[in-house]
């Protein structure tokens, strides 16, 4: 009798331990993420979508580093050098190329160890199929700017026309020596329903609508490509990249 009672109590206790106080993880809206915690770029090259890779043309470099990390231990370290002239747009890049959803949120965390003077410095890029006949081409660039000594900021460039006007009255500050998040909502459409919205550390700084790509082909690049950067090499750390159906935001999680 005592054994039976003991067994019953053990079963009940086990059930309660399994169920009580437990978070119910019901799923995820994150379609893909890269936290670099494997110490490599496997998350980029496993081709979650159409094609992905990491690349750097010498003397530029790209590596997984533990010098700075947004969460966990590792982040990607992208360096660019010899940028006095860079007409070919040579740099370091992480690419998700094709096969992306027609609309999604694209998030990445960046760390800029020091302010840099520059002519241009692209850190995020959307590409689409443009022209007649449609061919893969650059569409939007998110650039770092250096509005004044020691200050860094952002601008968004539309390769078809010009800079897109930001929706904030003052030029947003990009922090130096601190992690900041850039998150974009991109909807691919060849009519006025196309959209690009951009948040810097959760603050919306751009909301543009209009035709984007002519087909459903979309590419998203996290890059470090610049010209006339100083000092060199210009270093940029990248961590916790994600493509998701809902906003990640500054407090969002990519893993339990």
């Amino acid at each position, binding site marked *: 009798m005592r054994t039976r009672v003991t067994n019953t109590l053990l079963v009940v206790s086990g059930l309660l331990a399994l*169920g009580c106080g437990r978070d*119910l993880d019901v799923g995820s809206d994150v379609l893909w993420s890269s936290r670099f915690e494997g110490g490599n770029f496997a998350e980029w090259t496993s081709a979650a979508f159409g094609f992905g890779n990491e690349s750097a043309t010498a003397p530029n470099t790209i590596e997984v580093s533990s010098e700075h990390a947004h969460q966990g231990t590792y982040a990607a370290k992208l360096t660019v050098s010899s940028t006095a002239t860079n007409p070919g747009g040579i740099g370091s890049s992480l690419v998700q190329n094709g096969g992306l959803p027609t609309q999604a949120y694209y998030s990445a965390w960046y760390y800029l160890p020091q302010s840099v003077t520059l002519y241009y410095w692209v850190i995020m890029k959307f590409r689409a199929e443009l022209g007649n006949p449609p061919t893969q081409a650059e569409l939007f660039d998110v650039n770092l700017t250096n509005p004044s000594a020691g200050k860094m900021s952002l601008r968004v460039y539309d390769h078809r026309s010009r800079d897109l006007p930001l929706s904030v009255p003052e030029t947003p500050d990009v922090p130096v020596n601190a992690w900041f998040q850039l998150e974009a909502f991109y909807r691919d459409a060849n009519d006025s329903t196309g959209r690009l919205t951009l948040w810097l550390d959760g603050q919306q700084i751009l909301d543009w609508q209009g035709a984007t790509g002519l087909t459903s082909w979309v590419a998203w690049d996290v890059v470090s490509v610049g010209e006339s950067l100083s000092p060199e090499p210009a270093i940029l750390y990248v961590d916790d990249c*994600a493509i*998701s159906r809902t906003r990640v935001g500054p407090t969002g999680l990519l893993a339990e």
Partner: protein
Amino acid sequence: MAHSNSNIAESALGHGLCVRACRYLHSCVIATTLLAIGGRAYAADEAQKTVEPSTNESSGPSAQGLLDPVIGESLCPLPDAIWQELVTLVPRERLLARLRGPGKANASIQVEDLGSMFRVSVLDKVREYREEARECAYRAKVAALFVALIIDPAALLNAGLCEQPPCSPAPEPAPPTRIEIQAPPPALPPRTLVRIELSPTFITGLGAKDLAAHWGGALRFALGRGLVVPVLGAAALWPADTTVGYLQLRQWRLPVDFGIRATLPSSWIDFYGELGFAVALLSERARDLATAKTQTGIELGGRVSLGARLARRAGLTPFISLQAEFFPDPPRVFALPEGVAGRTPYVWMGACVGASWGM
């Protein structure tokens, strides 16, 4: 003999023999009280089809045969109070001789408190009286008079009775009371040992933006004849759609509870309340995430319920109940990338309307 005693009692209660009785009594008080009793009490069916004998085997013959002449778990009237009234009407020795005389089975006077009614049994005779005010002293007098009429009606009519102590002094005569003879209702059988309740049920969690309306069936068991009995219940519910924070979920629950039920009986409707522990198996599945998973957790908490049913002691009878379950630490619902969306409800409310089967 018992039958003739009963007839005498009926006559005294119903047909004004009290007038003649008063000629023999020093006071009319007892007779007029009998009239009042006859006006207020329902006489139970004296046919002993469903009544158990009132013998008390356990009391056994004591040295004096005096142990527990009045028994029963009654708070109103108390057995002792009946005895105190009874010995003012019938000499104690005569009472004991009738109850436990030589060659007779030991018998006791039984009394049961039925809420707005009470039941008196003696020598295979049973009466139920309605007395909703629960005046316990009055009940004791009525019970004593009934017993006296059954045991020794002649004692009441004996003119010399009240000359002996401990008879009470004669009070002022009560005003005439209109006598209404009512058809005797059938005697109520004892409470059921097992009660099973089956019903459709509706349960919803409070606090969610979209109330999750769970429909299903509920089954409950109450065990025991007392007014406070253990109770066990469970419900099988259909899944329902709800929201927790930003998440749209498909929710499924299997609640189980155990506790106690306290019943307040009355002549038409038995009201009851329940208090106990509640355990629920809770399953959630996201409806609109890119990657959805089903997760199951357990809720632990308390439960209260109020109900009512028609006061039939056995067989099927309808009932209705309302319930509330409280969970101090309900599971949190989590999804990437936004994290914890919120908790499942702290409070669940429910209602049942169904059939209760007493056995």
